[in-house]
């Protein structure tokens, strides 16, 4: 579906936007995507989401999403609804079912694309849960650094060693849970705000104009 970013595919939006306004921007775009009555608006937001996800360093497979959207259309077409377009043997292919499936497929792909493009791993969650999440994420990153030490031939032993390294349990040892303090993220740049405001306005205007 989509692969996480790596050093070859940096998150270009990260330099422009603080994770919190970026997340809220995503929610605004998702609102337009879900509420827009016409499929054309949803297609536009979906494509924009695809651009954002690519800028965020996610390698997305458009063919996979086309296939998935096609499957949604086929399943919807199996439940006839609205004007009959053509008869395929005894089976009526209907406009309502095709359009409903197409809109659903676009929405589904759009939700994933916008989400991939606007949710940053640096997103800060508030409160005590946020602190616990920061600790979890810190350990996750440490475990990920050990991923290459998981040997398929001795999977249990290798995982056991990794766990012991990061959360020591042997007598006389104790786990360290003071996670590294992340350096605060830079605030959103003017160009970032311009991107957020203009794109949201464009999406809302399109939705209203085409309704």
């Amino acid at each position: 579906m989509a692969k996480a970013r790596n050093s070859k595919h940096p998150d270009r939006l990260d330099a422009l936007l603080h994770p919190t306004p970026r997340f809220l921007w995503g929610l605004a775009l998702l609102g337009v995507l879900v509420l827009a009555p016409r499929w054309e608006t949803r297609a536009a937001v979906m494509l924009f989401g695809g651009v954002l996800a690519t800028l965020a360093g996610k390698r997305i497979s458009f063919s996979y999403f086309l296939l998935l959207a096609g499957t949604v259309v086929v399943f919807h077409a199996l439940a006839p609804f609205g004007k009959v377009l053509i008869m395929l043997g005894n089976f009526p292919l209907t406009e309502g079912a095709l359009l409903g499936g197409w809109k659903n497929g676009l929405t589904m792909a759009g939700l994933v694309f916008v989400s991939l493009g606007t949710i940053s791993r640096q997103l800060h969650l508030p409160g005590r849960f946020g602190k616990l999440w920061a600790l979890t994420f810190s350990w996750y990153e440490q475990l990920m650094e050990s991923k290459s030490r998981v040997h398929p031939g001795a999977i249990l032993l290798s995982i056991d060693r990794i766990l012991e390294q990061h959360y020591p349990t042997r007598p006389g040892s104790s786990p360290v849970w003071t996670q590294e303090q992340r350096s605060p993220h830079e605030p959103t740049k003017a160009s970032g705000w311009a991107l957020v405001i203009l794109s949201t306005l464009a999406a809302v205007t399109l939705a209203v104009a085409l309704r």
Partner: protein
Amino acid sequence: MPGSSKKMAQARLPLVAFFGALSLFFATLEYLFPTPPWFRLGLANLPILLALDFFTFPELLLLLLLKVIGQGIVNGTLASQAFLLSSSGSLASFVVMYMAFRLIPRGWISLIGLSLAGSMASNTVQVGLSMVLIFGPASGIIAPWFLGLGTLSGLGIGWGAETLKRHSRWLRRVKLGQSS
């Protein structure tokens, strides 16, 4: 809550966080195994299965929340239908596994049985939701395939959890540390 037990519960929170990290780590290891694009093995549930024996109900709920929100943030799908399907499936699976773990006498059900029950609950909820939200009622025709694969993966994950529980020295020492 008395002061001492409150302190103990506070001291266990980092272990909850570590199990949360472990869930995310296993979710990443999942990509080592070839599966159809629309199907997830659910390896992230393996630490939840192991955690049933370690934590109280509120701690387990916290772990579940760390797992589902964590996966949403790490994968970037927090605001998509994938997150809704995954979190609903995880919640259903957890409720069924927890009830089976608490209600069925020890020794009558292994982690394989718990995992199987959890994966069936998770897959049933996900198939139902995807029929309502995404594919429409006609997609019921693929439900048997999806549920069949889910049953196989549930068995596999249960077997992995049972093996880890029996042979992992790390788990044994964590358990000892909890009880002392």
